[in-house]
Structure formats: C-alpha cells, structure tokens
C-alpha cells in the first residue's frame, strides 16, 4: 500500500505536463478565446476553493461567492483608493478572502450543519453584496469600481496573453499548494472531520482549528481568484457576486467531482466553456445548464474526475472516499 501510493505520487508529477502544455495555448487563441481561457484559470481556483469546503471538509457552506467578491473588491479598492499596482493587491485579496473564510467558519463552529449552514452562509454572501451596493464611497456602489491595468513590474497587464501567463503561474502555485495541504496531516484531518467529526475529536485532533483552517484556505485561494477576476473584467460590480454566480460555482464543483483537484480543473473548464457554446441560443442557457447538471448528477455522480479515474489510477484521489 505504502509503496504503491509512493510510486503513484511520483507518477503524479505527470500533472505538471498540464500547465506545460497550456503554455503554448496563446499561440492558438484570439483575444476572445484567450479571454475565456483566462476565465477558466480563475474559475479553476474558485472551484478548487469551494471544493475544499464542500468536498473535502464536507460542510455545506455557500460563502464561496462572498470570498470571491471580497477578493475582487479588496483588489479594486486597493487599486483605486491606495493606488497599488495590481500584483501588489493579489496577496491583500487573498488575506481578505481568508478573513471572510474565518467569518464563515464561525457559523460552522457554532455547531450549525448541512442546510442550515448553507442558508446562513448564503445570507453572508448576500449581505456582502448589499454592502458593495450601498457603500458607494468605498466600493463605487452600482457604478462599479475600476481596476487599474497599468504596467505592473514590467508586465503589460492590459494584454490578455500576459494575463494568461500571470494567472497560470498563480493558479499552478495555488493548486500545488492545495494538493500539498490536502496530503499533509492537516489535510487528512480535514477528511477525517468530514467522515466523522466526533471520532476525530476523540483522537485529540483539534477539529475547530481544522475547520477554521480549511475555511481560511478556501477563502484565501478564492479571494485571490477574485483579484484575478477584477483584473480580467477591469471593473467590479456588485451584481457579479450574486446567487447566479454561486449556483455556477456550485455546479462546477459537482460536475468536476466533489473533493477532487483534477475535478475542480475539469469542472471549471467545462462549465466556463459551456455558456460560450450555447451563445447561439440566447435565453436557452438556463435550460442547457440545468439539464446538463442534472444529467451529470444522475449518470456520473462523482463528476468528470471519475471518468479520468476509470482511465488511469493516477487520477484516483487518495483522499477521496470511493
């Protein structure tokens, strides 16, 4: 068992081929497809962060959109009001998102679970949106808040291609970080909390700290994704962080495969691409989206990642219960 997982994790190095191949992508794109590819990277992080909480930690917490918005606004506010270059706002957005994660974890620590937690965290997200709308001095209110795309440290961030490489680096770092976190002692404790919280606590593992850590890490990466989104659209609006965004994020996690890193990537890529393919049928998007998600839930409950796992065992997630 030990050795086989050992060779498996060595073989997992093969995953570094994915970003390597992606390096060549801009050769094939026009600015439109590049823009969509950039969105895929952003949503990879959004999905991954969400998946850590609802997949790995197993908490039905819907504060993901809140983290996303907090990160985007932190970046835009730092850019507009403090005049910071965008790259400098990225860590701030991550920290702000992590703080959001901390607040959301407080609900879980109150002993709230399942749907009740879902509703409470959803309320958190909607209250944040109200805040963006009604504190115009800070957030620009409904007019939105621009993000400066001035040259950062020699990078021409106005270019979608440059954005792509910057996003690719950030995404790779955070995906690698998440994989390492999940494989660590903390990661195993996160899974243990999902499987049996009381038993985990009885082993002397501080479950509260584990829950807070998972939420904060989720908030951190989704917050950074928010900063990327702010740069990507050039202007942040409260409406971008509403319930529709939440539903889309949620679907990405499930379609990709709950609690799976590869699934998060697949889900984000698939559901970012989907609306672009159904552009030809305006107004039908909701139906397409709804039906596709229902079909995936019925015929492929473990998501797209389970297809990969069938092809090759290296896609098996060690920390995913089968």
């Amino acid at each position, binding site marked *: 068992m030990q050795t086989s997982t050992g060779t498996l994790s060595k073989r997992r190095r093969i995953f*570094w081929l994915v*970003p*390597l191949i992606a*390096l*060549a992508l*801009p*050769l094939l794109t*026009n*600015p*439109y*497809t590049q*823009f*969509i590819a950039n*969105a895929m990277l952003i949503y990879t992080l959004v999905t991954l962060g969400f998946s850590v909480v609802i997949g790995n930690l197993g908490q039905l917490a819907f504060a993901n959109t809140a983290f996303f918005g907090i990160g985007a606004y932190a970046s835009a506010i730092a850019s507009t009001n403090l005049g910071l270059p965008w790259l400098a706002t990225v860590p701030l957005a991550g920290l702000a998102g992590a703080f959001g994660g901390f607040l959301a974890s407080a609900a879980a620590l109150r002993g709230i679970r399942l749907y009740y937690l879902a509703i409470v965290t959803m309320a958190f997200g909607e209250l944040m949106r109200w805040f963006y*709308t*009604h504190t115009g001095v800070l957030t620009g*209110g*409904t*007019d*939105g808040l621009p993000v400066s795309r001035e040259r950062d440290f020699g*990078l*021409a961030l*106005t*270019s979608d*291609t*440059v954005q*792509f*490489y*910057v996003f*690719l*680096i950030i995404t*790779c770092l955070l995906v*690698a970080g998440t994989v390492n976190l999940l494989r660590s002692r903390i990661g195993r404790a996160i899974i243990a909390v999902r499987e049996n919280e009381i038993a985990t606590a009885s082993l002397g593992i501080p479950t509260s700290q584990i829950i807070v850590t998972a939420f904060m890490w989720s908030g951190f990466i989704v917050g950074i994704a928010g900063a990327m*989104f702010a740069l*990507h*659209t*050039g*202007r942040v*609006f409260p*409406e*971008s962080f509403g319930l529709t965004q939440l539903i889309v994020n949620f679907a990405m996690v499930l379609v990709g495969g709950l609690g799976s890193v590869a699934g998060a990537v697949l889900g984000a890529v698939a559901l970012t691409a989907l*609306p*672009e393919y159904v*552009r030809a049928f*305006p*107004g*039908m*998007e*909701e139906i397409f989206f709804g039906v596709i998600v229902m079909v995936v839930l019925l015929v492929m409950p473990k998501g797209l990642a389970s297809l990969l796992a069938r092809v090759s065992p290296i896609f098996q997630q060690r920390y995913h219960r089968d």
Partner: protein
Amino acid sequence: MKFKPKKLGLLVGLALAATGSAAADETTGLTDDSIKIGVMGPFSGNASSYSKAEIGLMAFYQMINDEGGINGRKIVAVQEDTGCDPAKALAAAKKLIHQDEVFMLHGNSCSGAAVAIKPEIVDAGLPWIVAHAVSDTISVPPVENIFHGVPTGNTNGEAMAAFVLSKPDTKKVAIVEHSNDWAHSYSNPARAYLKGHGIEPVAELVMERGQTDATAQVLKLRQANPDFIIGALYEAETAIFLRDMKKYGLDTPVMGTAGTDLENTLKRVGDLDTVKNYFVLHPYVDNLDGPLMKKWADMIHKYYPDEELTNFSYISIGSGVALVEALKAAGPDLTRSKVMAELDKIENLDTGILSSTITWSPEEHRGAKSSAVAGFVDGQPTVLKAWNTPY
C-alpha cells in the same frame, strides 16, 4: 525544478505580448455585398425585457435589407447575449470583434455592461453606436469611435426633473428607486437638476427589484407629503408601487423613466384611475399607439409577429436611421474611418421616431439631447412638453 516551466512560460508570454496584435483593419467585416454588424443585448437573464430594443433594431435592419440594402450591401447582424452582466458582455464584445470580425457594433442595453466593455472597444477602434444604455460615462469624454444614439442619463434626468418643476408650486419632491446603476442613471442627474433649482428631495426611498409590496414606501411618502414623486422603477415594481399608492389613497403625481410606458403600465395595473397621475419619459414623436409610430410598430410585427411592443421596442431604431444615413454618405468604398467621419457630420437629423433630432460632432458624441414626457390627458396617453402642455 518545478518552477522552471513557469519561468519559461513567462518568457514566452512576454515575447508574445511584445509582438502585439495587428492594428484594426479598416475594412474588417465587409464584403462587396454585406456589412457585418455586431448587436449585443441582454437576451437572457432578469433584464431580458430590455432586449426588445435589439429586436426592434433587428427588424429595422431587415427592413433596410428588404429595401435593397445600403450601396449594394446588406446588413448581416450577429446577435450576442450580454445577459446584462459585465463579464459576459466583455466576452461577447471580444467574440464579435476578434472572432466574428464584425465591421462595427450597434446596440447594448444595460449601462453597467456597456461601461465594462468600453475600454475594449476603445482599444479595438471600431465604430460603436450605443443604442439603449444611457450612462453618460460611455460617451463622455467623447471617444473617436463611440457614439450615443439615445437620450443619455443626464438628458433624461433633467427632462424628468424639469417636467416635475413645470407643475406650478412644486416645492417638495420625493424619489423612489431601485439600488442599481440603471435607476441611478436617471435619478442622479434629476437630483442634480433639482439641486440647481434649490430643491432637496423630501424623501429618498428604495424599492428593490422583486419586491411585491410597497406599503412601507407609500406610507413614508404619505408622511413626507411630496408634490411630485420621481420613480425610477422597472415595469413590475412600477405597477406594484402605483397600486399600493392607490390602495393607501396617495394621489401624488409620479414621474417615471423611459423604462416603462403608459400603455403597458395601464395594462398591468388594470385600471386608469390608478395610473392617471403617472408620467413617463417619452423619447418618441408620438404616442406608442399614435399614427406616427404605427409604421414602426408594423415594421417590427412584420419580422417578429409575436413580439409584444413596449417603450423599449422602439428605442434603438432612431440610431439605426442615423447609421443608415452615414453608411449611405460614406459611399461604396466603405471604411471604418469613413463611417465615423460621416457619423460626426450628422446634424439635426430627424429620425422620424425619436422626438429629439440626432447631432454628432467630434466634440460631442451624445447625439440625442432632449426627451419629451407622456401622461394621460382625458384618459388618453398624450405626449407632453411640460405640465398640462401638449407637445
């Protein structure tokens, strides 16, 4: 070891970025017999009632094509959905510019989406006629390639406030609106105009989208006892608000936006007594069911027989008329620069549909500078210039 590929990526990225993209082509999207025009609108989502504007514009294009096109070219419209969402609109704009390679853009409801895509379009340099979104920031300060073909927020807000003040002895004005950019684009200029005339609103209330009850708002208004109410509310909420005013016996006149119209509001509310004190911005030459508008209604119904017509249906057509003028004037050897130059020459153009003429110049790209008001006079929707003064 692990980070090597990324460094490599950075280098490749910088190298690619340095080469830059090709300069905008003057004749992209043209063939000998077609002009490709991108039409963006909110065809999905909760603001999709706006996309009636783009439907009206599409009908207008088809009419032009049926009449033989312009200088031998027919208009090929590529519709793209923005869902009224900035990120989606940005993707739509990039698709139209870089993938469909349209000659120009025309359309756009939703100010937020239009503001978000503006930098992209400024960079791309192709002509864009904004045919529904009203925010002044889209065309002020003027950019070479962006033209506003509808009365903008400032014009609208001032027209609303001016009408309110034209009622004798208007001293107290209240505002009730949604918390969104659409409502603010009307209410903020109206506030500024009122302030310029020494009037501060006696009450500023919010009624959010989706609310099915306006009791709290109406009771507060009853206490404030205004002479006139400015209401920047969507169709459904307007109807609910007016009903609740009637319910609680408040018969203060209400000044609404161009987002609603009298005919459909009456239909939604159900009785004339409830809407008799409701006024709307009315940017057209005639009542929606008046003789001068019939030709346009027939045109839309010819191509879209099932389309229910509202105020939105007609709003983009005026800028379509102006565009056709400019395309004709630019001659058969069309280029983007020529079209923009011809658009800049349009002066006092009577579009036969907008009550305001259209004038563009290099210094001013907000083409339509006035809007009328409509209200019920003797139970009939009537276009008005001022309080009790028919147009």
